[in-house]
């Protein structure tokens, strides 16, 4: 095992006990990046070569010099007897949606291709203050608008380390791919409809969407401000808890960050699931696909391998003392995507109006005769198709004559989705659940090009994750086995507000209960070469 394959927890322990230096760990990760990542995404990629198709392409920008200075500073602190913090010397890959001072921060969009952040986002700053080393910025769907990473303006797009002909998921696909391939043990992503959990599931790693407001959004380039949740991607539950511990907590710079005490996530991890009530819902064992030909919604069962993985997880947890409750009704789950199509587009359109070629970002280089033409050309040339689509839809469904029919209705549906969760987590209610256990995704990683371009089908990749976003509740995806094609299957635990400690504890119990299963020993193919 190379240093870069160690857990973040182990790296930090070894650095603090002087068994290895932060600089050595950084070099190991940089070597792995050099071996597996291939060329970084570019606005002018030229032809995608056969070699490109074998590489991961997680990174947009490896900030090696900045990282080396940070690692040396950690080693200096160790040498003088200072404690650098719980993430001492741990390399972190940052989704390029977070501002990191003096680095390019592009949102994977041409319109921000020249934007150098003048400050650092709160969660990244907190990790750096805890001793983490920011190793670089990782690719994403443009402005986080997608579930495959193919919409990035920077190509080659990230590929799945388990099978580089497949997508890593998205929008935090670069981060999930980097963590799976051992390029960094941790990545900070964001989740608006599943953008941490879906790529984590596709890449066989752990991804946590915290409760809305548990982690500050200050310094995050906004997508849908009422839903965006920054959170950890890691290779195991312990590292996820370790990272959440450093980034969670109130922030005066984000008025929506919750003034709720932060639990001790690591202390709770090993307490087991004895007596916990974990629910299974039939509403998460079927998928609804919209048929563009007929206009009808078509319900189908989940692929058998995915349902079996979830039911096996339930049996493992039952064997460890949890009570499994079947037939939990979550009837409004099915409306998650239609409501999301409206709410997220309205908020995205509002947030995208700030990109106008005036204050920062790209201004058209073509001659223009007035300000309006400059706006139209700068935005027309700077935005890719997905941002344009979201601006147009957001403006349409929030227009005065349509907002009651669409936007207000979608916000009411959000209330119904929230009520589903309130009912099953109610401590005095019929079900009194500690968590729901569900699949994370309706499929395992799909081939590149198979869905991209069809914005409706792509959105439906998030149908098992988006309800937690509407409700604001926390949810974690953990690896739950491999399918027949050796692609990772993700299982999801969803909890009540601020119950991250509990769902991480359940995830950790599941890890312990399956630690000897053969699939646990299988590594992604990109790492095996």
């Amino acid at each position, binding site marked *: 095992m190379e240093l870069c394959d160690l857990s973040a927890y182990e790296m930090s322990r070894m650095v603090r006990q002087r068994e290895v230096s932060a600089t050595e760990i950084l070099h190991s990760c940089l070597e792995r990046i050099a071996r597996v990542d291939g060329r970084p995404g570019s606005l002018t990629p030229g032809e995608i070569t056969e070699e490109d198709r074998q590489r991961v392409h997680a990174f947009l920008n490896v900030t090696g010099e900045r990282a080396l200075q940070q690692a040396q500073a950690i080693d200096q602190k160790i040498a003088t007897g200072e404690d650098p913090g719980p993430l001492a010397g741990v390399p972190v890959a940052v989704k390029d949606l977070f501002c990191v001072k003096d680095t390019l921060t592009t949102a994977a969009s041409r319109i921000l291709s*020249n934007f150098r952040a003048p400050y650092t986002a709160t969660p990244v700053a907190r990790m750096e203050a805890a001793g983490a080393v920011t190793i670089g910025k990782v690719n994403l769907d443009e402005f986080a608008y997608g579930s495959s990473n193919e919409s990035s303006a920077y190509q080659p797009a990230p590929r799945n380390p388990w099978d580089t002909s497949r997508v890593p998921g998205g929008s935090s696909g670069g981060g999930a791919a980097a963590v799976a391939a051992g390029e960094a043990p941790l990545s900070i992503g964001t989740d608006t409809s599943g953008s941490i959990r879906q790529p984590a599931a596709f890449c066989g790693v752990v991804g946590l969407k915290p409760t809305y407001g548990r982690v500050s959004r200050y310094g995050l380039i906004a997508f849908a401000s009422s839903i965006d949740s920054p959170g950890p991607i890691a290779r195991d539950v312990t590292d996820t808890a370790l990272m959440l511990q450093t980034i969670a907590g109130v922030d005066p710079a984000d008025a*929506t*960050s919750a003034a709720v005490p932060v639990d001790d996530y690591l202390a709770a991890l090993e307490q087991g699931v004895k007596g916990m009530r974990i629910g299974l819902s039939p509403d998460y064992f079927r998928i609804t696909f919209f048929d563009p030909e007929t206009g009808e*919604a078509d319900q189908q069962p989940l692929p058998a391998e995915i349902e079996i993985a979830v039911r096996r997880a339930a049996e493992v947890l039952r064997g460890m003392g949890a009570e499994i409750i079947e037939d939990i009704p979550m009837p409004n789950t099915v409306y998650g995507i239609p409501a999301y199509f*409206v709410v997220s587009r309205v908020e995205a359109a509002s947030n995208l109006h700030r990109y106008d070629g005036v204050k920062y970002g790209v201004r058209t280089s073509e001659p223009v005769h007035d300000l309006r033409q*400059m706006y139209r*050309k700068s935005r027309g040339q700077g935005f890719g198709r997905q941002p344009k689509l979201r601006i147009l839809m957001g403006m349409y469904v929030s227009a005065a004559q349509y907002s009651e029919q669409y936007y207000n209705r979608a916000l009411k549906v*959000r209330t119904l989705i929230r009520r589903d969760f309130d009912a099953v987590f109610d401590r005095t209610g019929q079900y009194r659940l500690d968590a729901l256990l569900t699949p994370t995704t309706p499929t395992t990683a799909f081939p590149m090009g198979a869905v991209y371009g069809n914005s*409706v089908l792509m959105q439906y990749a998030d149908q098992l994750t988006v309800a937690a976003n509407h409700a604001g509740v926390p949810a974690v995806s953990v690896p739950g086995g491999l399918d027949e094609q050796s692609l990772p299957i993700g299982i999801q635990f969803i909890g009540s507000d601020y119950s991250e400690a509990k769902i991480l504890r359940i995830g950790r119990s599941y890890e312990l209960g399956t630690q000897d299963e053969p699939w646990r020993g299988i590594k992604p193919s990109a790492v095996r070469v």
Partner: protein
Amino acid sequence: MSDEINLEVFQHLVELAALELTAEEAEYLRAQLNQQLQAIHQLSAIPLEGDVAPAAHGVHYDAANSQALRQDEWLPFEDTAAIMGQVPEVDGGYVVVPDIPHTTLE
């Protein structure tokens, strides 16, 4: 399937959105908008009784999880040059833009 967003509505939206599109982009975007609206129309089938209030957030904010209001004080940013350095065109500390079209209000 009829197009809810016809060419005329689409062009109006594009104008409001301040986007210059190629013909190919416009065709793709309008088709996708109409497909998405088909999915969105599922919302109209949901029974919404009178007591369903719209939710601005999933998580409820009250005194238990909200921050106290802070004083309305401005804080100087430590590096304003880094902000002004991002502006595409400046002149003596002013942001320069092309001519602003004037409209006479009636």
